């Protein structure tokens, strides 16, 4: 097969670090080539070099066998396109505008030929089996749809070499498999696809070959994925041979409830329907209750109601004997609520504030951090330092802005803050999203340790594997109500949960309670 890209001895230095260290990397047309490695291994950097955003400090790049020097513009002209880790989109613009941005078809005098653009895009969408109104504003789309727009953007430019940087990190399984379908069809068209992901099962199922990076170097190559197991990939990544993801003990729990939700209703007036319908459930002391389901079935609303940022239309919420239904967020948290936010970049952390500021947030009035309305800066620093150590938050210093940390370490700050409060109930929303396997294990370990020390944990996630790995009991949310409950997690299958997630719960039950 023809070689699309060859990177020879490419190095890139950043202040204090060699992000890429004489990398050899080549990709063929008609292949999905996975690039894997821990957080901070240098994958994104390498791809940014390939995309022309960074210039390599050493080495050369051959595109279609010819050495090239180029910027982003040059890369796009040569047919290299990149879908970034965080979307490079303009939320206020329409799908169409986002796609043609920078490369609009023009009539005379720079006037955009919208008709042609629309036709081309519709055609492209059809060929990929997508149905989307090109005039929808990006803001209104779901994350999965936005991801597809990114790919459309790349294809619209006629990309032959497509870089996907963690495209599934924020996708639901359904959305992910939709994406895979598209990726496969692109590969079959003969495009070269570079695929970065931390989800090893995905890598095995989609990729044809893989390159492994660690600490800026290439440490391994898999030329075929046929016989490779997740365990092997993980081992190559972290350089240890005995590695696996942590799994919980799934013990059914008989203790008294910490969280008790009764008859909870929430109406979304804009949608004109109830997004939470008559929810009743309990989370017990020492239990991880997993709430699964396709995203957008009421998870976000449920979190808001529990956290108190929105008010329920009816129903009660009790936290450890206290009725917190009418409490403010502040009081709920004082009563013993902890929250690991689904969106660590906006609601989980303040990226422009320092690490210490992030760690004490919400606890600033407690006597250990302040007196007479003034902060005890020394104590705060020492507590923060201690937590940084305890949670192994790499690269963090008290007075450093949180922005400087990588995603995995940012999540550790969130954990440190929430766990150090000693919450009675910990709501963990998508706690391992976008993390590498090392970090995932760390988070899981912390959650299990919390549960063992007697906290109740409400795990809300769209990741089936995770849900089944650490939950002791599972509820599936479907259109605002529970479509199924799984008591015995150890013997549940992905298929059965998948059916519940599709709203087929009743059907299953009638067939005679197979679970």
């Amino acid at each position, binding site marked *: 097969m023809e070689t699309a890209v060859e990177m020879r001895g490419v190095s890139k230095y950043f*202040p*204090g670090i060699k992000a890429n260290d004489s990398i050899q990397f080549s990709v063929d047309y008609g292949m999905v080539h996975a690039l894997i490695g821990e957080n901070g291994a240098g994958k994104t950097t390498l791809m940014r070099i390939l995309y022309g*955003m960074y210039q390599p400090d050493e080495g050369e790049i051959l595109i279609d066998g010819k050495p090239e020097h180029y910027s982003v513009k040059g890369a796009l002209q040569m047919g290299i396109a990149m879908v970034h880790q965080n979307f490079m989109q303009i939320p206020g613009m329409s799908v169409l505008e986002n796609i043609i941005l920078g490369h609009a078809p023009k009539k005379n005098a720079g006037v955009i030929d919208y008709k042609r653009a629309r036709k081309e895009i519709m055609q492209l969408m059809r060929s990929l089996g997508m149905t989307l109104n090109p005039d929808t504003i990006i803001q209104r789309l779901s994350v999965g749809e936005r991801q597809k727009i990114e790919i459309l953007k790349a294809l619209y430019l006629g990309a032959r070499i497509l870089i996907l940087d963690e495209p599934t990190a924020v996708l639901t399984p359904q959305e992910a498999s939709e994406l895979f379908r598209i990726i496969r069809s692109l590969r079959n068209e003969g495009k070269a696809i570079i695929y970065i992901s931390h989800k090893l099962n995905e890598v095995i199922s989609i990729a044809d070959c893989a390159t492994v990076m660690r600490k800026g170097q290439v440490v391994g190559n898999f030329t075929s994925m046929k016989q490779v197991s997740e365990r092997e990939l993980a081992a190559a990544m972290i350089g240890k041979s005995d590695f696996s993801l942590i799994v919980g003990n799934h013990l059914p729990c008989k203790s008294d409830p910490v969280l008790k939700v009764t008859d909870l209703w929430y109406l979304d007036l804009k949608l004109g329907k109830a997004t939470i319908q008559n929810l009743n459930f309990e989370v017990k002391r020492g239990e991880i209750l997993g709430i699964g389901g396709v995203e957008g079935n009421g998870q976000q609303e449920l979190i808001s109601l529990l*956290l108190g*940022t929105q008010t329920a239309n009816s129903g009660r919420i009790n936290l450890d004997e206290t009725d917190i239904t009418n409490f*403010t*967020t*502040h*009081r*709920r*948290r*004082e009563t013993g609520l902890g*929250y690991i*936010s689904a969106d660590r970049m*906006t*609601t*989980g*952390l*303040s*990226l*422009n*504030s320092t690490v210490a*500021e992030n760690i*004490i*947030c*919400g606890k*600033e*009035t407690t006597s250990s951090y*302040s007196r007479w*309305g*003034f*902060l005890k*800066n020394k104590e705060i620093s020492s507590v923060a330092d201690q937590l940084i150590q305890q949670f192994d938050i790499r690269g963090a*210093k008290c007075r*450093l*802005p949180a*922005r*400087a*940390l990588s995603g995995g370490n940012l999540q550790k700050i969130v954990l440190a803050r929430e766990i150090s409060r000693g919450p009675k109930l910990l709501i963990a929303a998508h706690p391992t999203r976008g993390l590498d396997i090392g970090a995932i294990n760390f988070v899981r370990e912390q959650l299990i340790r919390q549960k063992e020390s007697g906290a109740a944990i409400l795990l809300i996630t769209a990741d089936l594997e995770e849900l089944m790995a650490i939950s002791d009991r599972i509820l599936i949310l479907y259109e605002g109500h529970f479509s199924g409950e799984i008591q015995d997690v150890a013997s549940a299958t992905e298929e059965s949960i998948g059916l519940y997630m599709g709203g087929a719960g009743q059907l299953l039950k009638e067939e005679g309670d197979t679970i």
Partner: protein
Amino acid sequence: MKEKVLSIISPIIAIFLALIVVGVVVICSDQNPLEAYAALLKGSFGSVSNFMSTVRYTIPILLLAISFSICERGGYFNIGQEGQMFMAALTAVAVNDSLRELPKPLLLLVTIMAGVLVSAIISVIPAVLKFYFGINEAILLVMMNYIIELLVTYLMLYSRLADSQAAAMPKSIPLSVSISAPVLYIFTIFIFIGFTAVMKYSVLGYRIRITGKNAAFAKACGIPAARTFLSSALIGGGIAGVAGLFEVLGIYHVMFSNFAIGMGFMGITAALLGRHSPLGMMLGSLVLGALQSGSVMLSTITDVSPEIVQVVQGFVMFFATVSFLYVWKKKKSHLRKSGRNPL
């Protein structure tokens, strides 16, 4: 590396550019630019009394910078300071007039408190509208400034508070209480220290910072975001009011219908020059204060025409912006090394 050289060279170029442009302008008017520069310097720092005059100009600017900065950090773009100053002063005049019988110290206290209260309220109304209804506060504040200015002119002409002797310049009846200069200085220092302490070391300052940077995060963490946001607007407005009261009670002992006009800009400029760091803001206010007292000298002891004074002021402001930025950048680049640079 190239970036770095550029960032050092560009402000120097800008300074020279400013000096040359001002020089050319001054030469065009048949004056000696060196003489003009000397006068500016002498007028601001040349003698004790000139320095005191610099201090006198610095005080309101510093207070306004503090006011702007508190609001800005809380996420409230307070460009309504002129209106707040006017309302504080107006209230002071009104209260002073209607409670004239009170013993002087008590009257002074009541006057100040009433003024501060009203300016704080004036500032918090747009904040409420912003927080609960998502209305852009800048537009509200600008419009309120205009309305208040007109209202003040009207009252300084036709109300009980108008000076019946006024012929050309609408102004109020004289105030019966006043603040002496030393008290004024001490209070300003007090406010400055208080501001530094609150912003750096207090729980409130912490909450204001967090809410201003990321209100959604603050809410999710249980910080009472509404209360924090509104208190930053309230405090900022109150301090703007103090600036107005100091001018009226401490300097003029009467309220002119235009006394606050243009001062809001000065405060904002000082805050931006100092990048919201207390010391930086102090320096920024001092530069602007010096520029004002320097220009008094410029227009009285040199032959530079009044038209030129304004030009020089404008260009020096340019010059100050760039050079300050340079200092700030140098300080910041230490931090940047460890920070993430988006692209």
